[in-house]
């Protein structure tokens, strides 16, 4: 199998969810990427969404399917990665 083909079968479509300021920086609250790790999802999003987005990534917490994760964590098809800027709920 060609390397490119093998990558395409290993890499999965992963949903990225964005909120508040980083959602505004991206211009969308939801995007999909083919990626093998959380890091790759963020790298592709950064390439797509630009500098303001990139500046906000370090202040965000990263969740995978509702749980905080290290960015080296592997992702699979259907997973949902979320970037959460500092929160301010509760009045």
């Amino acid at each position, binding site marked *: 199998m060609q390397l490119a083909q093998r990558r395409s079968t290993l890499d999965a479509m992963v949903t990225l*969810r964005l*909120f*508040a300021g980083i959602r505004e920086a991206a211009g969308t609250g939801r995007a999909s990427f083919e990626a093998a790790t959380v890091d790759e999802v963020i790298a592709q999003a950064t390439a797509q969404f630009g500098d303001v987005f990139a500046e906000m990534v370090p202040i965000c917490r990263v969740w995978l399917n*509702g749980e905080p994760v290290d960015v080296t964590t592997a992702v699979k098809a259907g997973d949902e990665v*979320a970037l959460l*800027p500092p*929160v*301010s709920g*509760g*009045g």
Partner: protein
Amino acid sequence: MAPETTGDTAESITRCELVDHAIDLGELYSWAIRPECGAVVVFSGITRDHSGDRADVSVLEYEAYTELVIERFEQIVEQARASWPEIVRVGIVHRLGEVAVGESSVVVVVSSPHRGDAFDAGRNCIDVLKDTAPIWKREVWAEGESWGLDARSIEEVDTAPLRPAETAR
């Protein structure tokens, strides 16, 4: 937006809800009343007309990771029940979307046989919510609009410190 909710409001001892309309404090208070309880504590977090150097705040708008908020609220209630086992009914209701100044954006209600547990558990629920719920506040004031100044990195409920009244912020 469809309100997110769990629990049967008549029978359940826990209510965790996200709503896109005014919160009915009287209804929540009545729900919390139980014959074995001598205390109901209702905390209402209301939108304020100033924030830091932002004067004349007119509107606040709340956004949430809606699919995951209710689960977080339930963890907060579970943690409160583990720490204050006497408490009976516990409700956490948060508004989303635009909230005018002076309206409740969040309400916590706790009933208990005695007031001490109801106060302490209610205080803990709102304090932990502020640190652990994926909710964001946008403020519109006289000279601009932006995200809440008091924002903090989100924490996990099981590692958020319990805050008895004397140490709470």
